[in-house]
């Protein structure tokens, strides 16, 4: 069951896109954070986040730093992370995948692509 998705991105536009793409998707609740630190904060405040959509290139704390911290916390380790990458920073995506991210989508992405990947990853996490 997918209940809460934490979306981490420094772009207001991408958050708006998530709202459009995910608002009617399986009735899940969308939680937004503008950078890694805010995202850590949200993880502490919100119970039961079961998926993280993560941008890499962000001010204050980037996605890789965030990912590293999440992977070290027993309480958060199990939450699947999807990297939302932008062309030109492929090496960061690879690094993120090595650090434990479950998959990635490249901007620009379509709603169907995102849904497909979420489906696949959450199904894998449940089994």
């Amino acid at each position, binding site marked *: 069951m997918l209940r809460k998705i934490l979306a981490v991105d420094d772009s207001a536009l991408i958050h708006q896109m998530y709202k*459009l793409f995910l608002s009617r998707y399986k009735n899940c609740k969308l939680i937004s954070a503008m950078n890694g630190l805010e995202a850590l904060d949200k993880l502490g405040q919100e119970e039961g986040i079961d998926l993280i959509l993560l941008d890499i290139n962000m001010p204050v704390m980037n996605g890789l730093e965030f990912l590293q911290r999440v992977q070290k916390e027993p309480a958060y380790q199990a939450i699947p992370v999807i990297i939302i990458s932008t*062309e030109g920073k492929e090496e960061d995506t690879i690094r993120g995948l090595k650090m434990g991210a479950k998959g990635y989508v490249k901007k620009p992405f379509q709603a169907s692509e995102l849904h497909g990947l979420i489906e696949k990853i959450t199904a894998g996490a449940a089994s």
Partner: protein
Amino acid sequence: MPDPSVSAELLAIYLEDARGQLEGLDHALLSLERDGFDPAVVATVLGPLHTLKGNSGMMGFSSIKEYVHRLEDVFARVSDGGLGLDTEVFDRLFAGASALRDALEQACRGGVEVRDLAPEMASLDALLLSSGRAVAPPALADDGEPAEQAAALESPEAQRAVETRYVAARSSTVRVDFSQLDHLLNLVGELIIFRTKLDEVGRDLAERLGGRDAGRDLVSAVQQVAGVSAQLQETVMDIRMLPIRHVFERFPRLVRDLARQQGKQVELIMEGEGTRVDKAIIDEIGEPLLHLIRNSLDHGIETPAVRVARGKTPTGTILLSAVQESNHVLITIMDDGAGIDAQIVRRKATARGLLKGDESLNERELVQLIFAQGFSTAEKVGELSGRGVGLDVVLKSIERLNGLVEVETVPGVGSKFIIELPLTLAIISALLVEAAGRTFAVPLGPVMESLKLRPEDIRSINGRDTLRLRDRIVPLIRLAEFFGLPEASLPGKEYVVILGRGDKRVGLVVDRLRGQQEVVIKPVDTAIAGAAAAVALAGATIMGDGRVVLILDVAAFFEGRRHALVVPRSDAPAPPVA
């Protein structure tokens, strides 16, 4: 692609972000050009550019996305020392930033890309090629090594740095739609109106109750409400304020481009960028300021050769400063250029029929004529400056904001334009006057003085009543007559409010002065706004007793706009004068 019904909203968000990102790019380029290469400055552009690239991709703007990608490559090359920053590189980057801004604005207007950035892209590719490295980005099959970075993050210093940032980064801000703030301020305005009413009723009741406790309690409760609502008003106004930096930011780039284009050397100094002004004013003040700065650059600052010949430094200076003084903001645009020659102004004004041969004006008055409609000192219309618009447009925009603009100049030394603006447009100080039994509010800004009108001071010149005020002749306008209201006043019992605009004066004849008051401006319905402007009305306000009072548009009295309508009926009959 996003659903078309929501794409307007997405476009707006995209555009707002993109403007900020481009502002940052301009800022970094200017700083690099001025202070030389600094890796920290280059680093500040990379993040925003990357976000802009991702966003542009999401919007389907592939040409913009590709171009931003190229820009990232160029900055990466600059960063690793592969590409030196010389004039040629700066020119290409500045031109590219302009083209990008242009492409972006156009794309957001219709939701599809219009401008092809291929030529600009080729220009950057040439830079990359000359820097001697391949353009192709690495593929995703690459084998990265995360361990090193992970180790670096574990050091105690890194840990502490992250923790400090964590504490500092707890966001204490929220984004709010401006219309909600507008609505909030409107509600506060109404609260203040009713507070005044409550105050009156409270005093009245307390008087009737005599010295009884209930009366005293009521008065003190009303005072508390008054105190809190005043604080509430202040807080809401404060929320609407933004630093004027938002406007100033774009000028360094403009000055640089204009100066290069005209072969001039100009340094722009900005002061008081942190001065806070109502957002409604921020939104409107950009154009007039832009115009005045262009004016200083086009007509003020001389070419280096001329400057040197005049014993000045080859580089001219434009000072742009903002400072708050009580409830006003003063914006000054000062240059050390050629100044304005009053005699040239006289010749041009006469040639354009703005000045009759027999009118005698002193030098200061002559110089103010540059703001007159139809006056333009430009011999030829410059590519950026002119657009065929004169400074009269600047004057009009500033008056629309209830502001004033003045010019001081010393030929050969320089000019100084001073703009005085209210801190907010929502609440103004007004002088309440009465004519033909109705109350009107006159914005206090242009009110120079008010005095009793003695019949013996009135002179009729060419069939028009004028007043001799010290050494000048001031034309009189009777407010009741202006609005076609029956005149009820008795000669000898009238007052005159002297209004000023630049060096011009007009006397407004009224029956009574009712004192000064802060009034909340309720904008006139747009459907009748045109008609309202034609009859010299800027808006309306509601008084404590619920009466609607019309606010006069003072500019109209100077332009000789005449009324075509009787005054609207919204003004309920005034209570009998006590």
